[in-house]
């Protein structure tokens, strides 16, 4: 870090404006927190119609995030993992599904789908991912060539790729893809005003989005009950846990989780990866020249992008983390983005280095039972996306600044203008 660090006490992670700052400024703020205020306490962001909560501790150092994440009995997810505010119980389960559950229930639910996301099972899917990517890139080229040579990378590449893959895995028909994209965008908008103009309507809009997705699931589930297939939706309605099939609401929330997590995160990784290669052009040259770097390059993209910025845990009893005491009920927010730039773990953390090894990043979450279900899938999607981009669009260049999502939760890019300059 070359920049002078800001005053740690002046940083407010609950201020949405903080999340609109340029990435470098945010990273400098987290560097200051890691150094001077590693267990900073923050007042919770206000949410219309919810009572103000007691506040939270920002866990920003790699070792502290690992300690919290790897002790699920001391730091639970069941009070809420994706919301700082305590949501009404039914809302917490509906939008969190197994993310906001603890073992043993969490493990039993997760095991229903875990096999579908393992490396050996995904081998069968790689060809599909490649075909989907070929089609997407051909369509994007048509957009560029029928216009001024530019297109929006997010709209035409990084959104449709993971969206089509997860929809295929779930058995969602193509005509519903637009709805899935629109409604998951709303759920994970983090209050960005492009998606939620009136914050008083935030809860209502998010609830409506959940209902719309549940509607898709109900129709699919109805079909699968009479004609089961090999897709994930069939697995969800068929499987018994503790001798019972999942309830209607459990299936709906699981479905929403897979839809949302399956497309927002990889989209964010691909978009941020393309922009990182623009900011570090020598890394792009290096990767193109040496495809054997792909494995480490994909990990570095995930570290750099940190698509999911944080998850929450709640202390279940009076305890401590690396010497810092916590009381039962305290909320701890694990900032993965900050752990991923921890200078005590990563050499030159603010340098994008596609050969970085070792790279013990927490881009898929830190150790613990909630480690990303889709990690193997995401790695394959990112691998295929960049290999195909290099092959089929060697002349692709970033043509403007990314339009970033103003969210503390998803490190999203809403638009990234790119151009095919014809000079490969």
């Amino acid at each position, binding site marked *: 870090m070359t920049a002078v660090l800001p005053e740690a006490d002046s940083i407010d992670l609950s201020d949405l404006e903080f999340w609109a700052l340029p990435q470098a400024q945010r990273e400098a703020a987290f560097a200051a927190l890691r150094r001077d205020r590693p267990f900073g306490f923050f007042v919770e962001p206000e949410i219309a119609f919810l009572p103000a909560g007691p506040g939270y501790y920002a866990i920003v150092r790699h070792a502290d995030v690992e300690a919290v994440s*790897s002790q699920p009995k001391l730091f639970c997810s069941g009070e809420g993992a994706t919301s700082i505010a305590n949501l009404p119980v039914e809302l917490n389960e509906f939008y969190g599904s197994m993310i906001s559950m603890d*073992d*043993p229930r*969490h*493990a039993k639910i*997760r*095991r*229903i*789908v*875990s*096999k579908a*996301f*393992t*490396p*050996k099972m995904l081998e069968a899917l790689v060809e599909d991912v490649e075909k989907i990517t070929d089609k997407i890139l051909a369509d994007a080229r048509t957009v560029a060539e029928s216009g001024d040579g530019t297109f929006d990378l997010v709209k035409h590449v990084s959104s449709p790729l993971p969206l089509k893959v997860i929809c295929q895995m779930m058995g969602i028909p193509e005509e519903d893809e637009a709805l899935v994209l629109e409604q998951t965008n709303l759920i994970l908008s983090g209050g960005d005003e492009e998606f939620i103009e009136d914050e008083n309507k935030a809860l209502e809009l998010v609830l409506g989005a959940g209902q719309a997705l549940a509607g898709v699931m109900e129709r699919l589930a109805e079909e699968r009950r009479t004609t089961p297939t090999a897709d994930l939706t069939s697995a969800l309605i068929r499987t018994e846990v503790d001798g019972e099939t999942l309830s209607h609401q459990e299936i709906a929330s699981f479905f929403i989780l897979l839809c949302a997590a399956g497309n927002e995160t990889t989209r964010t990784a691909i978009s941020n990866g393309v922009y990182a290669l623009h900011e570090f052009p020598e890394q792009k040259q290096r990767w193109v020249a040496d495809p054997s770097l792909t494995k480490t390059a994909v990990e570095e993209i995930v570290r750099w992008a940190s698509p999911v910025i944080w998850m929450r845990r709640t202390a279940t009893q009076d305890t401590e983390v690396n010497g810092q005491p916590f009381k039962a009920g305290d909320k701890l927010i694990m900032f993965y983005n900050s752990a991923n730039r921890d200078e005590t773990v990563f050499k030159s953390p603010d340098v994008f280095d596609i050969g970085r090894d070792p790279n013990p990043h927490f881009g898929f*979450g830190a*150790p*613990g*039972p909630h*480690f990303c*279900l889709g*990690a*193997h899938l995401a790695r394959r999607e990112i691998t295929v996306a960049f290999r195909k981009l290099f092959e089929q669009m060697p002349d692709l260049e970033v043509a403007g600044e990314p339009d970033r999502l103003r969210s503390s939760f998803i490190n999203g890019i809403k638009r990234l203008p790119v151009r095919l300059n014809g000079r490969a």
Partner: protein
Amino acid sequence: MQVRIDRDVCVGTGLCEATAPDLFEVGDDGVGHVLRADVPAELVDAAREAADNCPTRALAVS
């Protein structure tokens, strides 16, 4: 060397399968299974790496 998977803790992340596909496989029950009771010499390092990297610490080598 022997490896064991604690099936109460394992949630089937499949990281062991990614590291050592000849040794581990997530089954239809959603948890990891050891494919070979005794680890051959050439897979000892991979087994250790898989145990170190298991996010749920479900893997033990002895």
